């Protein structure tokens, strides 16, 4: 692709888990995330040993991952992150499960699932608006 020939854009439709609008740079992983024990709520840094995103900050990012995993306390961890201002701006999942769904709802973090996450790469600019994901490469 030549530089300057315009940016590529894409639009995907999904299922609303937590309603809202969010925009930011994508941080993408193909691995599930456990918020309880896997992400430090004070810094927003992924701390799970051996995780693709280990050491990466999720704060303000459009966090793209297939699904959540682990303890149900993870919902409260997301809420803590929101209050500590370390939470992702939005969450995009392939298949959302209860821990992330409940966490996103109580924290009012926009969240969507049923999205083909292989279409979104780290660094893409992503806007999430209710059931629509707009991607700028």
């Amino acid at each position: 692709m030549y530089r300057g020939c315009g940016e590529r854009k894409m639009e995907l439709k999904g299922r609303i888990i937590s309603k809202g609008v969010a925009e930011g740079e994508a941080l993408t992983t193909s691995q599930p995330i456990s918020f309880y024990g896997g992400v430090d709520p004070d810094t927003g840094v992924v701390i799970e040993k051996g995780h693709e995103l280990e050491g990466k900050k999720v704060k303000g990012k459009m966090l793209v991952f297939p699904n959540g995993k682990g303890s149900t306390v993870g919902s409260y961890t997301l809420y803590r992150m929101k209050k500590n201002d370390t939470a992702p701006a939005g969450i995009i999942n392939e298949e959302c499960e209860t821990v992330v769904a409940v966490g996103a709802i109580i924290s009012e973090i926009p969240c969507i699932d049923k999205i083909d996450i292989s279409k979104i790469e780290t660094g893409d600019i992503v806007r999430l608006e209710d059931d629509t994901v707009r991607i700028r490469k």
Partner: protein
Amino acid sequence: MYLTKEEERMLDGEEGYAAKKSMEILVALGDIYGAEKLISVGSVQVAGVSYHNLGDAGLEFLNALARDGKVKVLTTLNPAGMDLEDWKKLGISEEFAEKQNLVIDAFRKMGIIISCTCTPYLIGSLPTYGEHIAWSESSAVTFANSVIGAKTNREGGPSALAAAFVGKTPSYGLHLEENRVPDAHVDVRVNLKKLSDWGALGYCIGKKVGNKIPYITGVKDADLDELKSFCASVVTYGSKPLFFMKGITPGSEKHQLPKEKIIIKDRDIKEAYESINDDVDAIDFVCIGCPHCSIKEVAEVARLLKNRRVSSKTEFWVATSRLVKQLADKRGYTEIIENAGGKFACDTCMAVAPLKGRFRSVATTSAKGCYYSRHNDMKTKLGSLEECIEAAVRGKWS
């Protein structure tokens, strides 16, 4: 998901903030899992009580709900991070206690019974066969589903609260008969001798069946404490929070033996002990009561500790609900245990109290307790009540 007019009203915020947030949670869960509607629940049990796990943000969330949220059904609480009446003796800091009390105040304001136990079925929240409930604590969920035959998913703290404020839960998962069919046959060819063997058996079955529902044959009899211990272990180490045990738990007669067969032999139990037990001899913490002790277990502890003395190098806890402790007070067990240097840890337990860094090694009758103690950086020893009491008295395992 279909919503009644009243449910729609709650979702629109006409019954206040807590009801609205609760409906948002229940509708999202219902949509994710394809529930057709909400169903009424007979009782709720709420986990996520320890300030250790909630932090200030969790406390803030609970306070926001407590402003206008009132539970609609019998609702009890999981253990907190400390004994609510006598936290000082357990070495809890003033700061932690202050925050923990604020958490409890929020729950009290919601109309929740401050039971702080993982065994609600021992203190008056006893579901009936087939009853729909919304419980959180995994061992209690497994006990209710399997031993009693009630129906509940394993709720998280917020979704249990949502069920309590609405009095309903989405109809999916283990609420539906079609999802309560066993899919792994486990034949137990082991002579279970002591309570900890049940924890070891739970470890074996949990690890082997993974995310399945075991149909267990070969167990001749089981009492309350044995089933309580097994429930805690099997779900901690892997399985869904439901099992059938032929001749012992209700409903097993309805199901055919699943084709997939797993045999548990003495060697498996021995291996379970080997992987749960660390190479350690000095024991500075002994805890009995994961899940919380029944009155029968407290009586056993008192019998074994009578006229003995817990080592000065060892902290000894009996973790139980306050109601069981009150029975123990009346029976004189409390006096015997405290005279021997033991402590009652009511309202809390070894899994949720802030114990990291306080002890190097723990001896317990609970396989689940070992799992959580390792999270707290302790070396673990799983053994019979007799072995654990010996360890407490001698300050060492061997």
